[in-house]
């Protein structure tokens, strides 16, 4: 299994909008595309209180490539996202990386 660690750095004041979008829009579309989350967190103590950190779980890079491309091209996602950003962008920047569980990891 490959874990994709994604950190969204929000535009100031927009973290609540991002959280609402995941909760009411994005996660439902991900279900349709069989994209699996492995946790979502906000920051209690750390570099940015505007950040959302989350994990996606993939069987392979090939699965990631195929499913993320379909999700990105989904007209439902494109129109819903556009609506949530009528007042301006929500996310300022994203950092992501691919991580592999160690043999002794409780998350496999």
């Amino acid at each position: 299994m490959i874990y994709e660690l994604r950190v969204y750095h929000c535009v100031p004041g927009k973290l609540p909008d991002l959280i609402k979008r995941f909760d009411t829009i994005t996660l439902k579309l991900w279900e349709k595309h069989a994209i699996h989350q492995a946790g979502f967190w906000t920051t209690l103590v750390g570099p940015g209180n505007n950040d959302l950190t989350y994990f996606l779980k993939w069987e392979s890079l090939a699965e990631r490539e195929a499913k993320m491309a379909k999700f990105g091209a989904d007209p439902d996602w494109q129109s819903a996202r556009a609506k949530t950003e009528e007042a301006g962008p929500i996310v300022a920047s994203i950092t992501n990386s691919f991580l592999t569980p160690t043999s002794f990891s409780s998350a496999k």
Partner: protein
Amino acid sequence: MIYELRVYHTMPGKLPALLKRFDEITLKIWERHGIKQAGFWTTLVGDSNADLTYMLQWESLAEREKKWDAFQADPEWHAKRAETEKAGPINARVENSFLVPTSFSSVK
């Protein structure tokens, strides 16, 4: 629940020594102190291939303070850590932060 995200930036060539220490020494001592992991990962694609990323799970900052201090003061940990670092330090630097799961997180 509070998640502590920890990223260890190891000295060049020392990531295998760090993995071995967690696998054979640290995790056993943590069990004794009631310190719970929530996943360990190495980097497949990201900032550095010498990093170990992991998460600890805490009920509260008070629990973290008490258990981490007890672990840091543990004579077995001191002795075994010193043995693993006879040839020089393993870690160059550690980054950590406290994260809180969102309402829709698969990890609670």
